[in-house]
């Protein structure tokens, strides 16, 4: 075996390993940021180019292995490169879609969480106690984990409103911005915060209902699309098969 190809192969292997290590680290960071609902970490994820490269490679591997190998190495490499480019190009969209999904979950969970906070406040609890009760009672999810960080910040000495402001900065969601503004206003006017939380809980529930209603309106059309895309073509294929065979035999 000659020198240069071995060197090239070694360099390629080292490149793939480096891409794997840094890319995997980036993927794990993204996963953790989504799990903890810390969207500020997603603005410029660490090792993002390497992560995009890894996603491209992961998309290319099955294309090379299962689809194009019988067609030869050149075609396989070309198709793999195209698939990798598509994967690289699509990864920001994938990241945005994952973020949107978590945002949607948080907005869906918000009504119950605010309800629990309002209830705890109405029964005379302090902010840390109310947040602790909310974390204890609410089902597991990104918002619950986000509250856990708020509790930690309060225990570390931050003012509750300041900790909530930090949460709003991490999430960048409108309902949280309005919540923090309303709580600040209530604090300035020395008004109780429980009615503010109760009102925001009502609005969050209305928002959730409106989103579900929008999805429900689209459901019949989606059912229709699923039927025409997956089920009707099956009948068409089965009925067309004898005709196609007949035609093939007639054409010799």
């Amino acid at each position, binding site marked *: 075996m000659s020198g240069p190809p071995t060197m090239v192969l070694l360099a390629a292997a080292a490149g793939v390993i480096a891409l794997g290590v840094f890319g995997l680290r980036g993927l794990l960071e993204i996963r953790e940021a989504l799990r903890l609902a810390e969207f500020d970490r997603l603005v410029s994820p660490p090792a993002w180019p390497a992560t995009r490269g890894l996603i491209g490679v992961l998309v290319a591997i099955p294309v090379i292995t299962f689809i194009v190998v019988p067609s030869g190495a050149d075609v396989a490499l070309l198709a793999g490169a195209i698939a990798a480019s598509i994967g690289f190009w699509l990864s920001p969209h994938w990241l945005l879609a994952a973020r949107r999904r978590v945002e949607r979950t948080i907005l869906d969970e918000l009504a*119950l969480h605010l*309800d*629990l906070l309002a*209830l*705890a406040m*109405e*029964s005379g*609890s302090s902010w840390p106690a109310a947040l602790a*009760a909310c974390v204890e*009672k*609410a*089902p597991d999810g990104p918002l619950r984990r986000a509250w856990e960080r708020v509790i930690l910040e309060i225990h570390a000495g931050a003012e509750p409103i300041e900790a909530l402001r930090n949460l709003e900065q991490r999430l960048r969601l409108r309902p949280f911005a309005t919540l923090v503004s309303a709580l600040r206003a209530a604090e300035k006017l020395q008004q109780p915060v429980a009615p503010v939380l109760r009102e925001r809980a009502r609005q969050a*529930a209305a928002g*959730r*209902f409106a989103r*579900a*209603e929008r*999805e*429900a309106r689209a*459901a*019949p059309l*989606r*059912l*229709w699309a*699923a*039927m025409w*895309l*997956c*089920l*009707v*073509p*099956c*009948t068409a*294929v*089965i*009925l067309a*098969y*004898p005709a196609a*065979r*007949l035609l093939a*035999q*007639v054409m010799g």
Partner: protein
Amino acid sequence: MVDFEVVAMTPEWPGMLSLPLLVFFIALPAIGAWLRRHRSQLASEAAAQLAEFATCVRGDARFRVPDESLQARLARLRVEETASLQLALELGRGDAQLLADAAQRLSTRLRRRVAFERKMLARTASGLRRGAIAATVPPVAILATSTAGIGIPAFTQLLLLVAEILGCVLLWRLARVEI
């Protein structure tokens, strides 16, 4: 004269495996709808019971724990919002008003869910019916072609099976909107 390939209807794996599988997946959207209807009925009963409980607590102005049947019903429903009633039971010891308000709010939420679910079931019923018919036609057509002596290749049958299952799962999933 053109000869078709005559395939005997032997109990080969695609037919043997795919038939019960297909029956299950074709029935899946209907089973899902039935379960949602059943759950909706349970939620409606729980909502009525909760409203009654809230009225009793408010009327007596006395803190009390919901009876076993209501608690069991709520546990069976596994509604997230039950957490607020549990918290009211834990935090509001002695505060009947707080408990009554929490029960009333949960009852209202459940009623709203029930109304939404009923509307959703009505909206998707015709689509699911059409989907079930569309999913039933291919296996019947395969049986008919086999009876006529025209065998569809096993690989094509497998692809059709996958498409059918995908379609049925999509029908089941798309007919379900969580609130």
